[in-house]
């Protein structure tokens, strides 16, 4: 046994290996991505990127029924996609233990919303575990598999960004002697959810919920830490550590590791021993509302924000009216912000430059390219969820007619297209749209740190596999106009987009440069525009971090530059023009 520093995500991967998990499946999504990336490196396990979270959970379901312990990972919004199998798996239960990791993102460091996925546990009547550091992430995961198998239920295991991406010491246990596999037994009335069978299973779910509630009252996952009894804090996850930092010995703590179903007797007993009972929880009053419904007097969201991440300062301010943590030194007002930007040489840049120039209406999607909505392009009008760009553009066309559709472009990345864009495209074909869809194929899932997917030709374990051919796929669905274009060729990119926007039938454009961070491909063209610079600043409209203004001339930072040479192509001096061409 030795101690190492692991992130919450790494600790879960390690715990899954030590506990004989045989199958892992998921879809990349910050902050969950590194769990499977680490798990796949352990010997004797199978792990995969599925095309989306729904398929990942279905793979986990099958693995569990076949007798393996299964680990399914996703970010919070991924569970919306996987909610269909999730809700009914509560009825079927499991064979081998199944744990679904939901990595929530309070504060929205890398997400489109900050929904509180604890509600999914209550919604599906599935037990919910919340660790507070990496050691607990590993230890609780083992408990989660025991609960899953003992109570015949999937288990929801909730992380937050602050836990997933914080390193704390973890005791490394024994290596697994190999995945655990239970016998497969045919059981139609348990695993085939026809209404007649499902009605009987619902009774089982309700009976299980009561047994879990009883279990929660005595589970070691819930613990009391006594300090001053003037304040009693109920908290779970990383918030427990924030509260302890803020109040130290001035409070007692009921730390809940099992947050659904709640141990209401334990909470009631704790309440009776403290003067003031306070629930400290991030986002929604999930615990507070249930405790109040049980008739226990408690304070909570009246003291703390319902949005964003909590921290010790917010907790102390909420409880004491002021925090002892104060800044000694102030910063000057009006410091420039530093929003994330497309990398130098990013192949998405020229597409958004053109869309801006053509004044296109753009339905957008989830990925690095969502940055196309930011200055200087502002060439995106919607971003809702994975795959939504395609359905939204069809809806806009149906609302406003094909003339409106001439200016309408849906923009989606390759991984996102495979995740949930294909069905939207089928709707375009089926219901006869005349729209334009651009698939920004950079051959990776870039935003989450470059994961492979079905169109890259590599698996999570790095093995070569069948490569989904996007052009052939789109053609086979029935799109007649399918064109590929090199986004480093600005003129061709503009021409293709212009022609396909004008075309009065559905067209799909696929850009074909890989992400600049994973590719060694460069144009390596000698760049001259900075020598000819007259200070027109047209190239600055590319928003490239390698171009900067020195006095009244633009310079190129050669160390940052990745030689895509798109800036050369917008430079009027290089093009030999005396006036701008627009």
């Amino acid at each position, binding site marked *: 046994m030795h101690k190492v520093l692991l992130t919450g995500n790494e600790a879960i991967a390690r715990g899954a290996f030590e506990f004989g998990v045989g199958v892992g499946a998921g879809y990349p999504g910050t902050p969950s991505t590194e769990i499977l990336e680490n798990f796949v490196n352990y010997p004797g396990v199978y792990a995969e990127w599925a095309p989306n979270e729904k398929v990942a959970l279905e793979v986990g379901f099958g693995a569990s029924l076949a007798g393996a312990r299964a680990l399914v990972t996703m970010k919070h919004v991924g569970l919306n996609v996987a909610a269909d199998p999730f809700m009914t798996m509560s009825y079927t239960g499991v064979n081998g233990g199944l744990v679904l990791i939901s990595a929530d993102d309070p504060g929205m460091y890398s997400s489109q919303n900050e929904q509180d996925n604890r509600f999914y546990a209550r919604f599906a009547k599935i037990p919910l575990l919340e660790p507070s550091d990496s050691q607990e992430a590993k230890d609780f995961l083992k408990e989660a598999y025991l609960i899953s198998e003992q109570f015949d239920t999937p288990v929801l295991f909730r992380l937050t960004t602050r836990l997933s991406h914080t390193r704390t010491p973890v005791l490394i246990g024994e290596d697994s002697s190999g995945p655990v596999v239970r016998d497969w037994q045919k059981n139609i009335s348990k695993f085939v959810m026809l209404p007649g069978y499902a009605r009987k299973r619902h009774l089982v779910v309700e009976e299980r919920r009561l047994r879990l509630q009883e279990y929660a009252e005595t589970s070691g996952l819930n613990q009391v830490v006594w300090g001053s009894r003037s304040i009693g804090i109920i908290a779970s996850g990383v918030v427990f550590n924030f509260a302890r930092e803020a109040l130290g010995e001035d409070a007692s703590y009921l730390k809940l590791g099992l947050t659904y179903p709640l141990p209401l007797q334990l909470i009631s007993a704790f309440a009776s021993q403290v003067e003031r009972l306070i629930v400290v929880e991030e986002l929604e009053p999930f615990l507070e509302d249930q405790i109040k419904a049980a008739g226990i007097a408690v304070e909570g969201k009246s003291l703390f924000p319902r949005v964003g991440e909590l921290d010790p300062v917010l907790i102390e301010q909420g409880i004491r009216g002021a925090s002892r943590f104060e800044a000694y030194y102030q910063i000057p007002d009006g410091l420039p912000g530093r929003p994330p930007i497309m990398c130098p040489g990013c192949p998405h840049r020229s597409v958004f430059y053109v869309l801006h120039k053509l004044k296109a209406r753009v339905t957008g999607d989830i990925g690095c390219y969502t940055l196309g909505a930011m200055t*200087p392009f502002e060439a995106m009008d919607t971003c809702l969820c994975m795959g939504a760009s395609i359905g939204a553009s069809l809806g806009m066309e149906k609302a406003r007619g094909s003339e409106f559709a001439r200016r309408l472009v849906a923009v989606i990345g390759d991984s996102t297209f495979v995740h949930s864009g294909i069905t939207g495209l089928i709707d375009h074909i089926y219901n006869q749209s005349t729209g334009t869809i651009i698939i920004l194929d950079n051959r990776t899932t870039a935003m989450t740190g470059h994961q492979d997917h079905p169109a890259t030709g590599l698996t999570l374990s790095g093995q070569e596999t069948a490569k989904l051919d996007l052009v052939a796929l789109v053609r086979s669905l029935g799109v007649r106009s399918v064109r590929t274009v090199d986004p480093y060729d600005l003129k061709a990119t503009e021409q293709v987009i212009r022609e396909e926007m004008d075309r009065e039938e559905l067209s799909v454009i696929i850009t074909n440069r890989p992400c600049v961070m994973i590719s060694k491909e460069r144009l390596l063209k000698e760049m001259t525009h900075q020598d000819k610079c007259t200070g027109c600043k047209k190239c600055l409209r590319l928003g490239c971090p390698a171009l900067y203004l020195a006095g009244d001339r633009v310079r190129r930072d050669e160390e940052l530059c990745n030689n895509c040479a798109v800036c050369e192509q917008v430079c009027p001096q290089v093009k030999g023009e005396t006036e701008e061409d627009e």
Partner: protein
Amino acid sequence: MSENTSIIITGVGGQGILLASRVLSSAALKAGHQVKISETHGMAQRGGSVITHLRYGSTIYSPLISVGQADYVLGFEKLEAVRCIPYLNKNGLLIINDQEIPPLPVLLGQIIYPEITADSFRSSAPRLLLLKASAKAQQLGNSRVVNMILLGCLAQYLDISREHWQSAIEECVQPKYLELNEQAFTAGMQIQ
């Protein structure tokens, strides 16, 4: 909580902050401390502001450092370093790499990059070190090792032995870059 050490490491995505913070946390663990280190992943890594909270000592609860509680702010980039000044405690030390990476609003000419010199902090953060670590890294032949130079400089102030630093660097750095990173760390330790 004076027995605990709290360090903010900040800069721009892609500057090697994750590696520096991993070496530091590993060295602290080897020295027998409890350690918590909170990193930035995801979208901010695309050229955005990146901040790592690192705490070690006997008992650490919060992985986040509250305002006014950091013993050190190690800034890989000037503007980002300045942004983190409110984290410093009264005697906190601000170590700044003398490098400017203009953010997009500056590149577009919408706002000017603020002038940040040693003098501009005399009143707002009394203890300040402004280092030419990027120039030093180029002298060593690889601009990427600026992170190890800065870490070496910070190491002079921390109660962690050279042996633990050495072993942490060996653990975190790929063998082919080990010698270069060790040189950079040593160069940082020699900065006065």
